[in-house]
């Protein structure tokens, strides 16, 4: 009986020690990962400085025409920093992007829409007025503001439209909705925007945060880090990398 208790005590003590060791190894592993990401961060900062200063010649000529429609996904908390959003937009306009879709899940950007557009117009005027060029060159940019309401709820609205259209009185014998029917329904309920070629994610994690599913079938999704740590050089690099991508579209 006494021996049994002793054995149990030893086993229990071994198990506790074992757990402690596992926890310690796990913490050390994560510490190493964090150090690695810090080192990567420093390397990225150096590279961004070189790109922004034009020293890395390969990034000097970016074929922006390949980016017909650019989407920017921003974490909703960060999206409240309107000045940062404006700074990003100015960078995008300066690179030559003509159509931009701004998305955040909660609709913070939609609420700040007026302030953002006004701010952008003011900053573009300041840039042009401050330049050496004699003539006024206005850069026309299409801005779209999107939130989660344009995503799954939009699909549900389109579903209701299809239901009302096809199931109103007597149900037809054979009914098979197609993707074209869905696209038309989304257009009809006001949620038929174009598919972005490139989607830049500003947030802690590479995830699209619920961007309208119907519009990102073949969209390249690139993680840019948080909005507060955004760098012009990273933007140039991301767009440059995108212009080199080749898609088979499944074939």
């Amino acid at each position, binding site marked *: 009986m006494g021996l049994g208790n002793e054995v149990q005590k030893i086993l229990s003590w071994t198990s506790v020690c074992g757990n402690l060791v596992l926890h310690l190894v796990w913490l050390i*592993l994560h510490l190493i990962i964090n150090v690695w990401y810090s080192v990567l961060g420093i390397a990225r900062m150096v590279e961004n400085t070189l790109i922004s200063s034009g020293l890395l010649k390969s990034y000097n000529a970016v074929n922006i025409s390949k980016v017909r429609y650019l989407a920017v996904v921003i974490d909703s908390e960060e999206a409240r920093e309107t000045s940062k959003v404006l700074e990003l937009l100015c960078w995008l306009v300066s690179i030559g992007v003509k159509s931009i879709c701004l998305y955040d899940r*909660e609709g913070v950007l939609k609420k700040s829409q007026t302030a953002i557009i006004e701010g952008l117009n003011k900053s573009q005027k300041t840039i042009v007025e401050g330049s050496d060029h004699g003539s006024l060159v206005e850069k026309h940019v299409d801005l779209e503001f999107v939130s989660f309401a344009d995503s799954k709820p939009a699909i549900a609205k389109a*579903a209701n439209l299809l239901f009302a259209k096809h199931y109103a009185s007597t149900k037809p014998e054979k009914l098979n909705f197609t993707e074209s029917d869905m696209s038309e329904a989304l257009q009809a309920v006001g949620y038929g925007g174009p598919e972005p070629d490139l989607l830049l994610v500003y947030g802690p994690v*590479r995830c699209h945060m619920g961007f309208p599913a119907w519009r990102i*079938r*073949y969209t390249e999704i690139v993680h840019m880090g948080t909005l507060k740590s955004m760098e012009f050089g990273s933007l140039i690099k991301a767009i440059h990398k995108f212009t080199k*991508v080749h898609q088979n579209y499944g074939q």
Partner: protein
Amino acid sequence: MEGVNGKKVGHLFENISSFVRQCIFSVLSVGPVPSHIAFIMDGNRRYSKKQNLIDGNGHRAGFSALINMLKYCYELGVKYITVYAFSIDNFKRRPEEVVSLMKLMQEKIDELTKEESIVNRLGIRIYFQGNLKLLSDHVRSAAERAMVKTSGNSKAVLSICVAYTSTDEIVHAVQESCEEKWDEIRKLDANNDGGNLVRLEENVKDKDEHRIGVTNVDRHMYMSVCPDPDIIIRTSGAARLSNFLLWQSAHCLLYSPAALWPEIGLRHLIWVILDFQRNYLYLKEKKKQS
């Protein structure tokens, strides 16, 4: 004699690898482990060219990689694994390639459903998700047999997306939602006043409770048998989802290692799990808010 020794060495190596893996997974399990990982198995053809294999052997190598990943995920405690095996877009490939892929798929499905296969040994239930009507009768029957034969397994779930695209899944779910609403309204009206069609039309247009909501569409997704994925891994470095799990991946960590699918290994899985654990609290918070 050499063959027997070779087998013994192989067995010993397998045991040591398994032990090392168990140790690594014990450490990883201290932190949160994802419940659902999805894989876009990209790069089989490029692997074939790179290794100078004959056409089709890249996909065979890809199948071995899939079995390894399945084993690792199971050992780690990941309950749901989803793989993008064949997209509706892939039907546009050369007919010979499509036929060869379908033959390979049927062969592998039959292999997986044998009693002694890894799927039955580990207790993994298989689902085939997609527009299965687009498959040939042989492949579709094999898939249906596999689903029935593994329906009693409950330790983990393997969803094989075949003849699948997200947009097709959404259209199918919308269709099913409409059918369900139609049946609901008809039943309601039949109970109320013997099925007056004019009243039926009014019901369709007016009542909020008859409106299709997000939860209705969600319920009819092919992938409604699983929770939303925590991680989507796409090999070959491509940064797009190619019409895969677009509805389900709002709060999903996307990982694109440069390795081709047949080159994917334990190190990639360990790396993405550690990344998931680093960002777990943020992802959990965002999921809660939705």
